[in-house]
């Protein structure tokens, strides 16, 4: 089995999974705390529409995926800010609209294109050196933005109005968060696919949420769980010859249900949270 790790494709896959796992679980902390789960799910489908358009017109798919993803979250955020529509309603509409576009673009393609389906279902084992470079670049950009605006992102997740009242440019930070969610989804698209990508964002942070009452610890646990399940999922998928996306996601879900069983929040005398 150790021989597996000597193959170039395996090394690329593991590195891609580790980057994507860490990044998704990091942004997932804000998604879970700010209650933006559906936004992320919708964004992944919008990004997939961008990919299909790219293949249809012969343009690079990832920039178009970014454009579709970012446009979707910005329109959603703008509609909510204007008070015209609740976030889950507008993302629901855009989610189905972009998915309809994706299906239409696939219909316009004259030949069957397996790479498109790779973005739908995930194929981390086929990540190329170029794609890995792009994933790494986007990850560095995102990590830099997260590091720069960490305290502001945490504050708007706690209470956006209180953050704004305290002098944080909360509206701009909220749009930054939406943009980061869209970028994360695009980075992870190739690894687990449009259908399952959001599980990688949502599940590690939700698992960590069961285990701690501290924001710092929650973030740390989320990244550890996200990276570990992504890497282990790739190994499991290679050894047992099963699709990589579902392998990562099902493993993460198993860890989530285990966390429910051992969660101190569900015990009679929660650790570190006893009522004084």
């Amino acid at each position: 089995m150790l021989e597996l790790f000597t193959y170039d494709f395996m090394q690329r896959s593991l590195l891609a999974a580790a980057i994507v796992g860490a990044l998704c679980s990091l942004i997932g902390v804000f998604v879970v705390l700010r209650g933006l789960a559906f936004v992320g799910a919708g964004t992944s489908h919008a990004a997939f529409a961008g990919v299909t358009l790219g293949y249809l017109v012969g343009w690079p798919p990832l920039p178009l995926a970014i454009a579709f993803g970012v446009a979707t979250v910005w329109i959603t955020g703008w509609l909510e800010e204007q008070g015209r529509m609740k976030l889950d309603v507008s993302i629901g509409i855009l989610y189905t609209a972009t998915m309809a576009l994706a299906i239409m673009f696939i219909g316009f393609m004259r030949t069957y294109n397996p790479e498109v389906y790779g973005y739908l279902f995930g194929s981390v084992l086929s990540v190329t050196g170029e794609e890995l470079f792009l994933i790494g670049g986007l990850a560095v950009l995102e990590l830099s933005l997260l590091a720069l605006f960490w305290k502001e992102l945490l504050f708007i997740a706690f209470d956006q109005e209180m953050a704004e009242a305290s002098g944080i440019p909360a509206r701009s930070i909220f749009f930054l968060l939406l943009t980061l969610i869209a970028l994360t989804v695009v980075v992870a698209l190739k690894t687990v696919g449009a259908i399952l990508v959001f599980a990688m964002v949502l599940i590690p942070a939700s698992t960590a949420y069961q285990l701690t009452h501290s924001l710092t610890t929650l973030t740390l646990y989320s990244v550890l769980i996200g990276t570990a399940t992504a890497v282990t999922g790739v190994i499991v998928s290679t050894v047992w010859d099963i699709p990589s996306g579902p392998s990562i996601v099902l493993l993460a879900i198993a860890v989530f249900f285990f966390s429910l069983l051992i969660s101190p929040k569900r015990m009679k005398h929660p650790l570190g949270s006893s009522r004084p």
Partner: protein
Amino acid sequence: MTSQQDSQERTSCPVIIRFDHAWFGFPGVVALEDISLSIHAGEFIGIIGPNGSGKTTLCRAVLGLLAPLKGQLRIFDCACEELRCHHRAQIGYLPQKGVVDRDFPVTVFETVMMGRYGALGLFRRPGPQDRRIALESLALVAMERYRDVALGSLSGGQQQRVLIARALAQQPKVLLLDEPTTGLDLPMQYNVLDLIQHLHKTLRLTVLLITHDINMIRSRVDRLVLLKTRLYAHGPPADVLKPDILEQVYGRGLIFSDSNLVFVGDYHHSP
């Protein structure tokens, strides 16, 4: 020095919040009309009125979250539309109970540290000085021994104390409290109000306190502001809490007890 002398001294302090014929509202709805009011540094102001009278709108305006439709609102001698982040950081805010998710996974210390974020500004990380200020703020509300405890595991009164500490960590000039005693039992209501009064005196803070409970704050505040869409009255409690004035605002819901306590029903939609 008597409380009246105290109050007179405060009204000679500079004006830090000035409403000048200001109207506030949302598309198609006027929530507050023609408000003219000056608040001096160091004053303790109680803002009262029935539900829907515009108390929270006034609060949002002072926070710089709502610009006037007409007229002017100046905060720290700056038009509220031009209020910069560092101005906002000078107003410590305690939102209504229930606005904050009490189950948010955050410790007491992490909550109070958030008070430093606005004051620090963008791109600056909290340092040892900020941690010291946060711990001092916790000490001011006597909650320092709970620093590593989950916020959600505290009682309602303790959570209010922590959120007041978060506001104090901003090192504000103004403390704005939106119904800080709602949902607390009676001893805890007095406990929180005593704390606010103590902070007002020791830190020389300007306090704006929105409440429904007239009797609990009447002896603590310098002035009362009585709202019902417009400013019905403002001044020392004895001048505002008169039956003829209160009846205009609370209508049939008003009862004066023999001990001069005021009880009001919720008749905010009645004429």
